[in-house]
């Protein structure tokens, strides 16, 4: 598996540290209900197919990267930097409703 870092280009998977589902980028507000924190920390859709997760380019540029990939085929579909991504707050609100 090779992952394309938006800054460094395509690199060996070993350069990256896997952090988990991209939901980790949408931290609830400090005063959010305990259920929102359980949802954020523990509960997962765990899809067989397309998923988005966070990888850290530990042995490269140290950027946090949101990777869109297929969990069945290991195909990497898209990558982008977590920093500066749009729609972050809107996504967090939407997720709160879902919970």
């Amino acid at each position, binding site marked *: 598996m090779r992952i394309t870092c938006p800054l460094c280009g395509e690199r060996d998977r*070993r350069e990256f540290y*896997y952090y*988990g589902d991209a939901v980790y980028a949408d931290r609830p507000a400090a005063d959010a209900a305990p259920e929102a924190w359980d949802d954020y920390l*523990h509960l*997962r859709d765990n899809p067989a197919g397309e998923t988005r*997760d966070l990888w850290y380019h530990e042995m490269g540029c140290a950027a946090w990267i949101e990777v869109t990939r297929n*969990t069945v*085929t*290991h195909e990497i579909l898209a990558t982008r930097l977590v920093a500066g991504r749009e729609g972050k707050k809107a996504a967090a609100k939407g997720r709160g409703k879902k919970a």
Partner: protein
Amino acid sequence: MRYSGLRVFTEGLFGNKGWKPAWRDPEPKREYDTIIIGGGGHGLSTAYYLAKNHGLTNIAVLEKGYLGGGNVGRNTTIVRANYFLPGNQEFYSHSLKLWEGLEAELNYNVMHSQRGLINLFHSDGQRDAFARRGNAMINQGDDAELLDREGVRRHLPYLDFEQTRFPIYGGLLHRRGGTARHDAVAWGYARGADQRGVDLIQNCEVTGIDIKDGRVTGVQTTRGAIKAKKVGIIVAGRSGQVAAMAGMRLPIESHILQAFVTEGLKPVIDHVVSFGMGHFYISQSDKGGLVFGGDLDFYASYAARGNLPMVEHVMEAGMTLMPMIGKAKVLRSWGGIMDMTPDGSPIIDKTDVGGLYIDCGWNYGGFKAVPASGWCMAHLMATGESHEVARRYRLDRFATGRLLDEEGTGSQHNLH
């Protein structure tokens, strides 16, 4: 049909023409009292103990493929009771005791071999931790012996005792630990359940779970709708998808664990050897193949195959520990889909839906748990109460903070 040595002998005399299928292949009925989703080790043992311990026999086990075709048919077959935390200890202790009587119980040769398991340690601190673990095991009523370096050498003379990266200080010997024949466990439970009237229905994939007024009423399958008052989800790596049919999200992320088998060799490794610092463990199967594995690939995946970096890591660890295996040829490798929980411990619990139960989150340690998991899940489904050795395996423990973090590494999805 009862199996015996005499039977094997007489069948051999007459061309083995008298053997009959070990279980029926029934059509699904329209309704059962209880449905078990998943015909793997845990699902089959649950069905067996529902019938055996609780007298419930109007049960169907629904399997989307063939019986025992998932992780129970592909694993490294280690059976042990060397856990440390209260909550895990009594459960795995119970499981090992069930293993010790399993062949007589099932009238089936599961090839349970208590060849001894040695966990190596490589520093003073690690020795202290293993001494403490050993004491905990003894307090639980199981066995443990702390070996020094020379003690390890007597058991495992072929290790590289000169290597300097992880010098071998000693090991924790668990004599009752060992291996078993993975397929046979599934087949033995399947046969035992079938003999007690359980319908084992293969090629029957569950596509939906019917819920009315907060209670489960049955399931939709590729072979039609089947009603049931109680449903148990026991589907390992696929737990997330099946739970989603009931509108649930689980504290589970599915990961790959790879394992490897070499060509058959003459007996050379008598024990199960675990080299935690290298994330490597090994035993030798009865066919002679060296069976070994390492750690997770460490990313969510359903691919049932891993990536090369972990293959390389496992081979390097094996060569560090026992260079003698370097000329053995690897015949095959595979990747299993592991249902990983944030704290690395399993779940056997009710759900918020009435009559719907779940047994999942076995991480990479489900094989040894097959007997006790079935025993406790059957107890829960029959009585509505958690079995005393599985009372900590709560679905809500992540929300309440009553974690079972055996490794002590934290409760987060990428840590176990």
